[in-house]
């Protein structure tokens, strides 16, 4: 049997490896996507005080520490049965909007966007942020840098640090906002709304105005009819910080909404001995392997999923864009993975609008930052939407609030099965009876990956170039026949 190994590079060998096996006829027999790393947070957090979890679990991921910080703080609230003060909740959410603003900007301009702005056929060397700047103009580069800086400033102002914030605790936060800081944030937020609108306009002009791209987005190769997940508020509008988790089936029918504490009624994880990561799926639908459709419990949790699982956006401008999104793409749900890039920009606009709403809330400069817990701690679940998927922290403690057990279902992990499926589909469409595996395969796999924004993509933007993907083709004896390589951002899943 012929075997093709795709090493999404170095981090690869640390973080993700794809094996494609061909059968006698030269067609794809199977593909395996391995995550070769584990650190063991669910074990070594046991024994730690629950109020430290926002700081300890930050260290799961340096790309989205804010998401872990929030999920851990909310799980801590739940463990103590304490409701944070109203101002504290708003301050946490405000920090989180600053984070989303930076993260979504980075992804669109440095990773997902260049494929479209430059065109998927443009030379790899041009498909990066510098290429975008050359094509669209120098001014845009300055705007992108400004957008990232503003988001970082909000995070640092409220979280204390640019990476690994430290201010959320059970019952509230330790840091409030002065009027001067509030004004600064409001100003940045208003600029952010303009920037997000500008970004959406850019997408319309360059992508939706081009029939070739529209075909590409709507084509079958990047389509999977899976279930979708995303957190919503009481009006079923997308919410990143709080609410219930909505699940819709591949026909767009809502199967239900669960409160964080009920996640085990909905989610199970499939375990395989050949990878360090588990495959989450919908428990009541069941694990049917790497396959889509109504009978398969595989679900996706991304910006596209959040839009699919909701009834709209909570802010006016983002709502207009939401409607335009579904009008253009033929109604809900949208199954085409490449539409995720557009969905991400709708969310970018929401983040900016929500940031301004919060920054102009009269309570935001309140000094009522913290409610001291009074109940005996026991067990609690905290859920937020990380940019790369619904993030669940579940803690059990003794009566002193010392952790006795921890369960984490982390961002990109939700998408482990769908990513595996996308890889297989791309491989199958490119490798057929004696078809030469060529750079096209790498391109297709790369674009399939990018739609999910597997973690770490966002770090690659500052320098030109992205991660290479390497495909090694071996014959039956295991000798290397050929090596192809191509830049890709790595398939680093949120490993615990």
């Amino acid at each position, binding site marked *: 049997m012929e075997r093709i190994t795709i090493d999404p590079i170095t981090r690869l060998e640390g973080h993700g490896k794809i094996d494609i096996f061909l059968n006698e006829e030269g067609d794809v027999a199977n593909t395996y996507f391995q995550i070769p790393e584990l650190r063991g947070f669910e074990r070594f957090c046991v024994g730690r005080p629950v109020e*430290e979890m926002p700081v300890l679990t930050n260290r799961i991921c340096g790309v989205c520490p804010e998401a872990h910080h929030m999920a851990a703080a909310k799980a801590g609230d739940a463990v103590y049965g304490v409701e944070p003060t109203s101002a504290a909740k708003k301050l946490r959410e405000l920090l989180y909007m600053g984070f989303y603003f930076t993260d979504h900007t980075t992804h669109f301009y440095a990773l997902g966007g260049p494929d479209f702005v430059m065109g998927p056929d443009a030379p790899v060397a041009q498909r990066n942020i510098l290429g975008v700047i050359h094509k669209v103009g120098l001014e845009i580069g300055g705007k992108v840098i400004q957008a990232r800086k503003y988001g970082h400033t909000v995070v640092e102002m409220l979280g204390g640090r640019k990476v*690994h914030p430290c201010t959320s605790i059970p019952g509230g936060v330790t840091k409030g906002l002065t009027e001067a800081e509030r004004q600064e944030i409001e100003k940045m937020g208003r600029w952010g709304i303009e920037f997000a609108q500008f970004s959406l306009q850019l997408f319309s002009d360059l992508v939706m105005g081009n029939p070739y791209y529209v075909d590409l987005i709507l084509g079958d190769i990047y389509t999977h009819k899976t279930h979708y997940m995303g957190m919503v508020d009481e009006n079923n509008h997308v919410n990143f910080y709080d609410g219930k988790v909505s699940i819709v089936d591949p026909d767009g029918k809502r199967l239900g909404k669960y409160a964080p504490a009920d996640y085990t009624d909905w*989610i199970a994880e499939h375990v395989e001995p050949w990878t360090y990561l588990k495959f989450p799926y919908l428990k009541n639908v069941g694990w049917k392997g790497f396959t889509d459709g109504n009978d398969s419990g595989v679900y996706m949790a991304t910006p596209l999923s959040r839009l699919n699982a909701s009834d709209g956006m909570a802010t006016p401008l983002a709502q207009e864009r939401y409607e335009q999104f579904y009008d253009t793409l033929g109604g809900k749900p949208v199954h085409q993975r490449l539409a995720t890039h557009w969905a991400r920009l709708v969310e970018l606009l929401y983040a900016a609008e929500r940031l301004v709403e919060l920054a102009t809330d009269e309570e935001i400069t309140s000094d009522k930052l913290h409610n001291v817990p009074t109940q005996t701690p026991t067990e609690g679940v905290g859920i937020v939407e990380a940019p790369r998927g619904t993030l669940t922290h*579940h803690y059990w403690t003794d009566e002193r609030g010392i952790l006795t057990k921890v369960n984490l279902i982390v961002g990109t992990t939700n998408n482990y099965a769908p990513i595996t499926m996308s890889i297989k589909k791309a491989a199958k469409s490119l490798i057929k009876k004696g078809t030469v595996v060529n750079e096209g395969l790498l391109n297709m796999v790369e674009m399939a990956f990018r739609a999910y924004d597997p973690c770490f993509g966002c770090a*690659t933007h500052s320098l030109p170039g992205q991660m290479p993907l390497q495909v090694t083709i071996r014959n039956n004896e295991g000798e290397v026949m050929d090596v192809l390589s191509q*830049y890709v951002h790595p398939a680093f899943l949120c490993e615990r």
Partner: protein
Amino acid sequence: MSEKPKFAMYWAASCGGCEIAVLNIGEKILDVDANFDVAFWPVAMDAKYKDVEEMPDKSILLTLFNGGIRNEENAHMAKLLRQKSQILVSFGSCATEGCVPGLANLSSREEVFAAAYDSITSDTLGIRPQYSYEVPEGTLTLPIFNTIVRTLDQVVDVDYYMPGCPPESHQIGAVIDLVIQVLHGQAELPPKGSVIGAGGSTVCDECGRIRNVKKITKFRRLHEVAEIDPVLCLLEQGILCNGPATRDGCGALCPAVGAPCAGCYGPAQDVVDYGARLMTAVSSVIDSNDPKEIDRILDDIVDPAGTFYRFNLAHSLLHASKTAVS
């Protein structure tokens, strides 16, 4: 072009925050680009293990290595980069002292696996990752998960240490400036084994909070404190702050926003045992001379292992528990 000295950066078992911190240095990145050939930096450019293996020994001038040594793959890369680099910097808390993931050294490998794979949401219990596994189509392999986390200097010889989780960007910028000055003959490298990108004192020395040499009769956990005094030293409010034992360099960021120092910059200069140093500092604020009373007050510290070795267990004298190594 190729006469420029070569620069490399690598991540072993890490969260990626160190890479983000480097990318956050902004326009200084251009100085790196102007003065170095970036020979290997997976987060930022095309590179393969094979390319590194083919480089002549000592051909990379400067390698920043972040992440702990959790599995065999990490250890292999540490050895390879040591061999290829003239200057190897242990970059960030994971590489330097094990960081939070080093707390896994209090547990056995099986305990780590059981927590991960036999969780409440797992659909099948008892499945463990197999280092070599036969699927119908062939054999799949995974790197071996070692019994304990090791720091970089427990695996290879290290030239410099740069603490912080992650190192703050202004400190990274200062180190880059220094290295560039050295390249131009305008400065000299510090002695081998030095800590760079940090101070020689403690976080307390950088902290803006006021100390009154006030004594306490009780430790309070952060969430139990109704209102944190914005100006008074946290320790003197009974909040356990790791500032007195921790190396300065960050600018005392956490106490500035009402959170105690967690200790991410590691042991202060010349501190052999971080836990012992912190214990001494903590004991000194206790308002009692009665050993029994002191013990009672210290009992308020609910997680001594986590408090005194939160970031540095893997590099401490303790290193790992018996359970972990058995």
